[in-house]
Each structure stands twice: as C-alpha cells, then as structure tokens.
C-alpha cells in the first residue's frame, strides 16, 4: 500500500486557487466542507475549534474558526488577511488563498489572486449576480486567473431549481463578456449540505457536470505559464571559486517565460550582448531544456558581464524595453498615491525608481465603469496609471506573461509595499 501511495504522491500536480467571499455567502462553510469531506482536518484542529465554539457560546461548530487564524479575526468574527490552506486528494495538492470578499479588502483579494491558477466565485442562488460578484470577477480577470469556477451556492434555498441555475448562468455569461477570462465553469452547490462539493448531489439529478472537487482536480494547468516567450531574469551569479570549479560562472534564476535549450542564441538586456547557452545546470547535472517556472542556472559560451537585474532572452524574441509604462495599479496603502510622487519599483529581479506621471482613470470595481473626474487613488482603488522609471524595464503585457508583466511599488520612507501594477497591453511609448 505504501509503495503505491508514495508513487502516486510523487506524480501529483499543484493547483493554487483563491476564494473570495463575505460573512454571509457561505465561503467559510464551503472551505470547511472541502477540508472536512476530503479528510484534511485533523482531530486536534477540530477539537480546538469545538472548544473555541463552546467558549464563544456558539450552538454549532463554527468552521470559520479554522480559517480565522489571528486573535483579532476570531474576536471580530471576520477574516482580515489572506490565509493559506492546504489539502490534497490522490490526484492533486491544493493551496487555497482564502481572502475576505468585502470591498475594503480588495487589496487582500488582489494578493490572493496574484498566484492563483483558479478562482472560486460564490453566487448566492437567491440573489444572483450582485456587485460583489462583479468585483470578484473583475479582480480575477484583472489578475489574469486562467480558470474561474462560478459556484451557485445555497441551491437548497431555491428548491434545487434548474431554472434558477440556468438563469444565473445566463446572467453571469452576459456580464462576463466584458471581462477577459479564459475559462468559466459553473457548479450548482449547497455548501451547507455538501451538494456537489465533494459528492454528487442527489437533489440535482438534472446537473451532469462534475462536483466542485472534481472540477478542481481536472482543470488543465499545464499551460498556465507562458511557454512561448523565453525570459530569464538573472537573480544571482554563482561563482564557486573552488579548485574544482575555478572558472565556473552560473547565472541563477527562475525561468519567467518560454522554454530554453542548450545552444540557444541569447541576448542579455540591457547590455544587448549576445552569446549561446552552453549548459543548463542544476544540482543533479545538466538539463536538455528548462521552462517556466523552473529554478536553474545557465552557463554561457562567452565570458560577458551579467549581473542581478539583467534579463536573458532569446535573440529572436525580445520583450518590450521602456522607461514609460502604462499599468493598471491597485493601491494597497492607507496613504493615497501621490501624482508626481517618487517610489521604488521591483520588477522581476530588477530594482529601479519611478515617478507617477499620469492618472488616466479609476475603475469602479462594482460596475466596471471608468471614472475620469476623481483622480484620488486611495487604499483599494484600481486605476490606470502611467509611470516613468529611472532605468528601462524589460517586460511583457501582463495578460501575456504574469511574471514579466507585474511590478510592485514601494514607499521609500517606510519601505512598505504600497501599490502593485500590471502592464497593460496597449502600445507602450
């Protein structure tokens, strides 16, 4: 038995998904249900939650206490921060980025969405598509989560009605045309009773699709990374200076896009020097190819000057190189963004500074309307912004590459991350 399970386990894939929701829409119940029904909650955790529930005078075991980790959250009965949860089935390992869904936590939703392959969006079967649905879907689209799963929840409260399900599906379908989402799947569920969460519902025989867990287990994630445009931001230069490896120089980094092969003709940015990949090195030896998101080291044919913050690309596939960049910015700090203000920028492994040149418009995340008359960008606001950097960045549009299209903005006094940006796909100056 052990041999079999070990073998299976070594062959599992990893799926990162995000959930967003408010107190009332059953998000905590859904996560509790997924963890509980997939046997991922341990006895001592359940005991601890039981003890805490009783102490609080709750009638039922409150599964939300499993996810609300900080004292302040438990006291106030809300999720403030992004909490990461883990569970596994024989097919896949899952990482849940569990985020609060209320508008004042947009920054937390954006954070959870940044690394996700999939998003679960809950719609209350009684209410249909609401402002909250709109907000969550927009964030999923903006952050380019490839797979969105619309869970139409509380089907028990609408009599498990197929008509209601189809109605909401159509409603969301029309709305989704305004968004940029690669794949949408719909699942009618009751998180409270477990219908179509892990086990198929006997109450909805008209539904032929998979349960939520089956959908999560079968989403195709092999191509979620860009495998077309080879990008290798140099992270660190490995120089052993030992007798055995006296002249070795390895450019260490994580492939941020495309596939690299030994023998590839490469160009180094910003120097524009060219060379060829001699070998792709890892501890175990050398590789025949390396693709995103592998961490490797390149040895080159020529001894050229390369340091952290440079980017190795293939000669015939160049990224954009510019100091003037248009981004969609999500502001993450209580102190509003300063027009003409100067900030530090981190983009891949590169550090530069920037000035906020122009605020084109803000987005009303509840209606998707562009707002032109209010240019104050405050906490949780999303805006289209033009920045100019002190040195050129090497980037791709965010919707083409989530690694090379993303950057963070840092306040130079507090060193805090105050904004995050995604490069738009409009032509960059």
């Amino acid at each position, binding site marked *: 038995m052990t041999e079999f399970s070990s073998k299976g386990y070594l062959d599992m894939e990893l799926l990162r998904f995000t959930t967003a929701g408010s107190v009332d829409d059953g998000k905590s119940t859904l996560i509790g249900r997924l963890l509980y029904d997939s046997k991922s909650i341990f006895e001592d955790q359940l005991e601890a939650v039981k003890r805490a529930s009783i102490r609080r005078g709750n009638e039922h075991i409150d599964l939300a206490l499993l996810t609300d980790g900080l004292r302040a959250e438990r006291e106030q009965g809300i999720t403030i921060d992004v909490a990461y949860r883990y569970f596994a089935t024989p097919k896949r390992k899952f990482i849940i980025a569990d985020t609060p869904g209320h508008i004042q936590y947009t920054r937390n939703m954006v954070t959870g969405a940044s690394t996700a392959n999939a998003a679960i969006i809950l719609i209350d079967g009684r209410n249909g598509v609401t402002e909250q649905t709109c907000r969550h879907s927009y964030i999923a689209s903006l952050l380019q989560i490839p797979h969105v799963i619309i869970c139409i929840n509380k089907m028990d409260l609408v009599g498990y009605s197929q008509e209601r399900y189809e109605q909401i599906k159509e409603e969301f379908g029309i709305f989704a045309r305004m968004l940029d989402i690669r794949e949408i799947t719909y699942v009618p569920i009751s998180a409270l009773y477990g219908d179509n969460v892990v086990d198929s519902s006997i109450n909805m025989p008209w539904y032929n699709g998979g349960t939520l867990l089956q959908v999560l287990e079968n989403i195709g994630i092999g191509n979620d990374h860009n495998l077309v445009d080879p990008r290798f931001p140099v992270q660190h230069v490995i120089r052993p200076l030992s007798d055995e490896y006296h002249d070795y120089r390895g450019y260490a980094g994580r492939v941020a896009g495309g596939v690299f092969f030994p023998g590839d003709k490469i160009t180094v940015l910003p120097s524009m020097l060219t060379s060829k990949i001699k070998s792709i090195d890892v501890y175990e030896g050398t590789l025949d190819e390396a693709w995103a998101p*592998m961490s490797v080291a390149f040895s080159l044919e020529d001894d050229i000057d390369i340091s952290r913050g440079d980017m190795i690309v293939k000669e015939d596939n160049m990224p954009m190189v510019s100091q003037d960049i248009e981004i969609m910015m999500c502001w993450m700090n209580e102190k509003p963004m300063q027009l003409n203000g100067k900030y530090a920028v981190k983009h891949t492994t590169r550090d530069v500074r920037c000035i906020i040149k122009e605020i084109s418009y803000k987005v009303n995340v509840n209606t998707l309307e562009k707002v032109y008359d209010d240019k104050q960008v405050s906490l949780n606001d999303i805006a289209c912004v033009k920045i100019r950097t002190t040195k050129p960045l090497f980037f791709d549009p965010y919707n083409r590459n989530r690694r090379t299209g993303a950057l963070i903005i840092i306040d130079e006094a507090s*060193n805090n991350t105050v904004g995050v940006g995604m490069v738009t796909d409009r032509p960059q100056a």
Partner: protein
Amino acid sequence: MKSKFSLTHLEELEYESIYVIREVAAQFERPVLLFSGGKDSIVMTHLAMKAFWPARLPFPLLHIDTGHNFEETLVYRDNLVKKLGATLIVGSVQESINNGRVVEEKGVNASRNILQTTTLLDTIEKYKFDAAMGGGRRDEEKARAKERFFSHRDEFGQWDPKNQRPELWNIFNGRKNPGEHFRVFPISNWTEMDVWQYILKENIELPSIYFTHQREVFNRDGVWLAKAPFMKLKDGEKYETRTVRCRTIGDISCTGLTLSAANSLEEIIGEIAATRVTERGGRADDMRSEAAMEDRKKEGYF
C-alpha cells in the same frame, strides 16, 4: 491530461523554495539559516545546497541550543556541517541564563522553549544578521497560515500580524531600515506530507530518532515525553520503556514522541497518511492557549 511542460507538485515547491533562498542571498547582506536539527531545517539546508551548487552556502547555519537536545541531533548537525563545508554558529540558551538575560522556568512543566526567543534575538543582534531563514510552514499552525515568505521584524524583533506587507506574485520586498531584520520562510507552502515525500524522493539522511527505537519515556496529559536528567516527574507519572519515534524534533522538554514501529521513510509516510492528529498536536508549547503561537511569534519566536 498532463502536458509535457507540467511539473509535479514537489518539483514546483522545490523550484519556488530555491527561488526564495536565492532571493535572500541576493537581497540581504548578512543572511543566516536557522538550523534546529529537525526535518524541516534539514530540508531547508538541502534546498540551499541545491540553490547555490557548485558553490558553498553563502550564509552560515545558526543553531539556537537550549541545552536540552537529543544527543542524536547534535551528532547529525556536526556531520552535516562538515559534509557541506558550512559555517555553524551556536547561540546558547544556557549562556543567556548564566548572563541573566532570561530566568529559567520553574515547576514540572518548565521548558526552555520560550527562552530561545531572547537567545535568538541576541544572536541576530550580535552578528548583525539581517535575514534569518527558518523552516516554518503555513500548515503547521493557524497563526502561521498568514505569515509572509518575507516577514518584516522591527528593531525589537517583533512581528505585527495586522500590519504585514502585501506580498504578490513572486516579488519579495526585503527593504528595511537599519536595525530591522527579516524572517524568511522558504518552505511556507509545504505540508508535513510534502516534507516527508521530498525526503524520500531526494533520499535525504535524517537523525536516527525519527525512526523507531526503544526509549525510556513517561506519559503526561496523554503525551509521551522522553526521560532526561532535567525532566521532573509529577505524582503518578513513571518511566517505562516504549517503542517510539519523533514526529517533530524540538527541545526535549516539549517534544512529544509517537508510539511507532516505523523503521523506514515509506513506513513513516504510511503512518502520516493514516494519522488524524497534526504534528504539533504533541507540542506542549502550542497548547498553552488558543493564540499561543501568535503571541510567541509577535515577540520574535521562530
């Protein structure tokens, strides 16, 4: 269907952790890797070795020594340091007690676990370390579930859970003011099962106490603890010889032993797959209150 370019979850976790460890080496001037002799810090050291191969580790290992160690852990530690050609720094809790920096806890449940925090912060200050990498995982405990990869600490070494820096994609912000430092958790996204499977896959050597052996133990509140000169029995407790192994390794005074005959990694993995209690379920330090871990972390604990 899996594409040619898909990765297994262990590969993906490994690449992520190597990326984080390399970021630490690149963004900080004086990083250090916290080494306890436990499986998580052993996996961390293995990942660090891979991240910089064929160069040596560009940072030292730091062991905060409570003086209450399993002997096997120290033997293992010294062998590993020799094998890697690494530098080892030891911060001694006994020394902190001798210097009057901390006072030893009294009573039968006395543990040096909390005292470690002072020794750790003193050692960080003494060597001016600006980043301390640890083997903490988010699946371990609910306060850890909200921890960042790069976790900022103020000049007192404190963690402010309500004012953490946003952390998006794989862009890590290690900027800080003088006197502040970072705790970095490269294996944040690993679970206990992932760690064991990785040890199996990579064939990583472990201290022998992780495997079954006979030991003199006693039972306190349902937890098996090891006999040691500094452990005092309560009324009604008695030593007995049992077949046990460690599921986690910490200070002897708070490391619960598992009754187990598991003698190989495969058997341990089978045991964990069937178990219904988390690995910290045997840690007396976590049972002190609902927010025990959060409180210790705020003060600067690992």
